């Protein structure tokens, strides 16, 4: 009998306790953020969509090689000082946002952005071209210096380049002023 009465008492008291807790929540402001009108403030190292700063990129191809899903498409043309990159594209359909390309990039061209919501209707539109063929990116360091693209330690390099250019110019001037003795024709060789 006592157990029965105790059960009834417990049931009633616990019901009231529960109601008090939930009623308190009824009066508070909900914790929901109304996306897309309100958004969470992202931390600064948030790993969002990968973007490539083409001013910095020198087509070393490390990001394309390290990508585990091969989502970076790079195409270059030319050799040595005339080498240009005319296509740099990231296929966000494939990108797994691992960030290995950002780790590998020597010039910090490849970085995570703070973007995270790009749902589109056509999957072809998720391949983003960073470079247009009309304006290709130079790859060789000297060409980059001359065209004003990013080179690490730019001043030193510029100074070195200038020194080299002056040395070349001086040599050219010397050659023009005092031409070197003409080579003696081969005699007695290969008789």
């Amino acid at each position, binding site marked *: 009998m006592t157990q*029965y009465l105790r059960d009834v008492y417990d049931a009633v008291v616990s019901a009231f306790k529960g109601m008090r807790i939930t009623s308190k929540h009824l009066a508070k402001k909900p914790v929901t953020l109304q996306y897309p009108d309100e958004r969470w403030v992202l931390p600064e190292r948030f790993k969002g969509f990968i973007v490539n700063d083409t001013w910095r990129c020198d087509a070393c191809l490390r990001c394309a090689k390290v990508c585990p899903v091969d989502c970076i498409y790079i195409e270059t043309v030319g050799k040595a000082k005339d080498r240009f990159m005319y296509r740099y594209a990231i296929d966000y359909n494939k990108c797994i946002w691992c960030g290995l390309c950002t780790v590998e990039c020597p010039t910090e061209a490849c970085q995570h952005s703070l973007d995270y919501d790009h749902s589109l209707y056509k999957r072809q539109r998720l391949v983003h071209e960073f470079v247009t063929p009309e304006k290709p990116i130079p790859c060789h360091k000297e060409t980059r210096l001359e065209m004003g693209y990013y080179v690490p330690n730019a001043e030193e390099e510029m100074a070195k380049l200038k020194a080299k250019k002056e040395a070349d110019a001086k040599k050219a001037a010397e050659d023009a002023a005092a031409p070197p003795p003409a080579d003696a024709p081969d005699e007695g060789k290969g008789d």
Partner: protein
Amino acid sequence: MQVMTDLFASIFGDSMSPTALLITGGLTMALIMSLVMALCAIVFTWLERKVAGFLQSRYGPMRVGGFHGVLQPVADMVKILGKEDIIPQDADKALFMLSPFVIFVGSLMAWAAIPFAPGFIASDLDLGLFYIFAVSSAAPAGILMAGWASNNKWALYGAARGAAQMVSYEIPLALAVIPVVMVTGSLNMNAIVEAQGGGIWNWFIFHNPFLFIGFFLYFIASIAEVNRGPFDMPETESELVAGYHTEYTGMRFAFFFLAEYANLFLVSCIATAVFLGGWQPVAGPVFAPGLVFVIKACLLVLLQMLVRWTLPRLRVDQLMHTCWKVMVPLALLCVLGSGIWMMVSGELL
């Protein structure tokens, strides 16, 4: 119905015979009650989702219809009307199609005796309260029909449990209301409401402590009657295995829920009429009786929603234990106690 009959009499005057006035008055009241039921379903589905949301520290529907999702029920209705109407192959077609309406009608019939305002009652029966309880017993029949006609043994199982629960809880429901009948001396709903005039302390809930307990007994039993809240074992079986409305799709399914919300408002209206003074105001003269009644009933509905979203549900044996071993003895004690109180205080002379 008096209000309606007088309205038609004032418009048409002598051109209508008393019988015609009675019939048109009655039909208009029936139409109004059906509209009230439909309105219940619309408003309370929205309110339920908002209350559930805010209780869980989130918003409910927010986008549909601009301000806090007020058009969400409309969107739900459009969605459910677009669903395919499937009838199982070996189902008992006639019973299958009939059972949602049986449940709906069981609820609609009880609306005939609810006193919204003086004169604004569809049918001023001298047996009003008794009629309401008698007619709400159509619901278990509808549930059994639904479960049997589905040709699904799990549906039948769930329906049997649901019917057993509803039938069992009708007993504490009626017993909790008997002290009120003792105090008033009549089963007429208008008389019960009018006897509670003169301010909040004249309401039957404060008449004597046994009636106070009786109100809570009635409230709990009414939640069980509507298959809601902690007593929704027959319904949730549909989430777990099957329930009596498993095989129903589209509009038929919607009918079950329409009937549930209408029933919810119905039992809240009965509670306000019988315990909380009906259309009598808290203090002062009678003003806007219909509004006062509806506001009180809505507060009770809100309380029912809070209870549903707070408490975990009872297992079916706990349900039956609560009914027969706790609520029925307590209700009988309330009847006895109320009688003794009235005898001692001199009312029963």
